[in-house]
């Protein structure tokens, strides 16, 4: 009996015991701007100006930007550069074949990138926020750029004129797993050439962009959450009524 109780207790702890530590570049937490319309609009501007040249967001229509407070005219005069219509999908002039030749890989479609990059380590926005701030100059790479979060990434630093150029500093350390062996461990980024924005401004700009990417991953998310409150409240009321109705039938059962 006691033995069984012990087994039960031990087994109950199992899920906690089997938790596995994850190694990798730590993710910074992206500020939550998912309901900040000004941030989303600025993010849309950065996205169209810097990302859409190579990446597509082919599930997304420009006209959907009306959901974050833009008008048809604002979209037309600020975000459409090559004769697209407001109702068009966000495609890119870069063909997959060209991209393969120029960068070695076709840039992924960004429609749902924020959802795809979620993991146990952090949300998709955290990943993107960290990624876009972790590019550094690396002359061994064909593009001259490398990334701490996504080593040997094919993408060059598209926002470099905003952030400027930074290098990564590494220090030599003992390998934790193999004594006597040395490993290179990242210590910090160092700015070589300043960009148009200060580091704080750049972080904020990326936060806006990432908030936009998150919104674009599911444009209906605002509606979903707002409607959800009412649906759940209504159902709670309904269950209260159903509960009393049920009780009124069952009180006659002896």
């Amino acid at each position, binding site marked *: 009996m006691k033995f069984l109780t012990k087994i039960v207790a031990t*087994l109950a702890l199992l899920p906690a015991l089997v938790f*596995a530590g994850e190694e990798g570049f730590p993710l910074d937490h992206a500020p939550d701007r998912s309901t900040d319309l000004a941030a989303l609009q600025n993010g849309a501007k950065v996205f169209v100006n810097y990302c859409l040249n190579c990446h597509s967001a082919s599930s997304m*229509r420009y006209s959907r930007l009306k959901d974050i407070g833009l008008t048809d005219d604002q979209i037309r005069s600020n975000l459409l550069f090559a004769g697209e219509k407001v109702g068009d999908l966000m495609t890119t002039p870069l063909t997959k074949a060209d991209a393969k030749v120029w960068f070695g890989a076709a840039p992924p479609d960004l*429609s749902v990138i924020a959802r*795809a990059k*979620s993991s146990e380590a952090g949300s998709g926005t955290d990943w993107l926020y960290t990624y876009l701030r972790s590019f550094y100059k690396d002359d061994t790479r064909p593009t001259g750029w490398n990334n701490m979060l996504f080593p040997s990434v094919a993408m060059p630093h598209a926002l470099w004129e905003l952030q400027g150029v930074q290098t990564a500093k590494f220090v030599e350390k003992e390998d934790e797993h193999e004594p006597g062996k040395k490993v290179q461990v990242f210590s910090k980024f160092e700015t070589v050439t300043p960009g148009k924005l200060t580091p704080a401004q750049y972080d904020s700009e990326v936060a806006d962009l990432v908030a936009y990417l998150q919104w674009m991953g599911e*444009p209906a998310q605002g509606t979903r959450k707002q409607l959800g409150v009412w649906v759940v409240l209504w159902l709670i009321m309904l269950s209260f009524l*159903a509960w009393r109705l*049920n009780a009124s039938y*069952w009180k006659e059962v002896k």
Partner: protein
Amino acid sequence: MAFIEKKLPADAPVIEKALGWVDSRFPLTKLWNDQWGQYYAPKNFNFWYIFGSLAMLVLVIQIVTGIFLVMHYKPDASLAFASVEYIMREVPWGWLVRYMHSTGASAFFIIIYLHMARALMYGSYRKPRELVWLFGFAIFLCLMAEAFFGYLLPWGQMSYWGAQVIVNLFGAIPFIGPDLSLWIRGDYVVSDATLNRFFSFHVIAIPLVLLGLVMAHLIALHEVGSNNPDGIEIKDTLDANGHPVDGVPSHPYYTFHDIFGVTVFLVIFSAVVFFAPEMGGYFLEYNNFVPADSLKTPLHIAPTWYFTPFYSILRATTSEFLRVLMVGIAAYVGLIYLKTKLPSIVKIAIAGIGLLIILGMQPWGLDAKFWGVVLFGSSVMILAGLPWLDRSPVKSIRYRPMWHSYVLIVFAIVFVTLGYLGTQPPSPTHERISQVGTVIYYGFFLLMPWWSAMGTFKPVPKRVTFKPH
């Protein structure tokens, strides 16, 4: 026999006349009364008895939302992924329909697992309800097939590689394996051909079988009558009208009872649909937002959570673990020899099978992958044997020795732990834990004929335990 038209007075309400007309030609009223209206169910049902009607509700949700999804979804490898996003963005209320369907899939399994846990606690599969259990088991198999085929349709990376891994399992079968998996896929890799046939299975073949089985499950249940938390046959004590004293007609009592259950369930269901449709990557896996790519294998491929307990058993079966299994099989054959009164011909047959398996597990025999598939499959199939494995003199856990409930709790914890491990990347520690879990999982079932009959049982009352509300 001559046809007799049911005659109603000329001034009877039209609706009654219409019903009379139908009843003379089709047993509508009789069906309703047999299956629900005059079906006497035990009055002492508790929380655990809500999952049958909830499963029915979710089945309806899945079928109705599924119909609308099919209107907009494109079963074509080059269009499928984008068509799901089209549903999420451009189809009015498409996001709601899609989230209801994806959440419904997971809800279905949660409900069915709890429904089965109930059967385990109260011995609901015991005589005379063996067929109710077997039909239910077949429904569970269909549900797994339905979920597996359906999961390929969004055509994301997890869809694609999950299907690839599972179809490849068939390749482990000796001789016919590789041809069999080729035949299932219709191509050398999972491709457009696979997507099309999985779509066909998901929207037509399996649902048809599923609906038939659900009917059989209910007809069988209403024929023998429901079990209850006391595990007492209420038909043994009848009142003057021939109705069970401890039963109530399902309508209105369980109609309103179940409506209440449904509303509470819908609160939880809606909370997930509206606020956490991805459920932290368990209901909608993050990697499935990346379109399928046959050239990029994800680092970590995990099936959706409802398959992972069985998947863990598959992964636990390493060539090292085969040695444990061989000892286990030898010991089990020994146990059957010493502790059962089976005819010696049966015993010899069992020993022969045991010997064949042990030979097959030798290093020069079949590889661990094949045995993993065998264990994976049999860990599901073994559920069908429950009515015959359980030898307890009483049905309900309430009147069984206290330690029997600890055994059930251990089993439940092992099942959940195996499920959790199946979602995680493999590691040596995880492997060891899932091997222990596998041994406990099989031990629970294979030793049930013995442990379920051991201990001091409490006397079972004649009447059910019921406190009027």
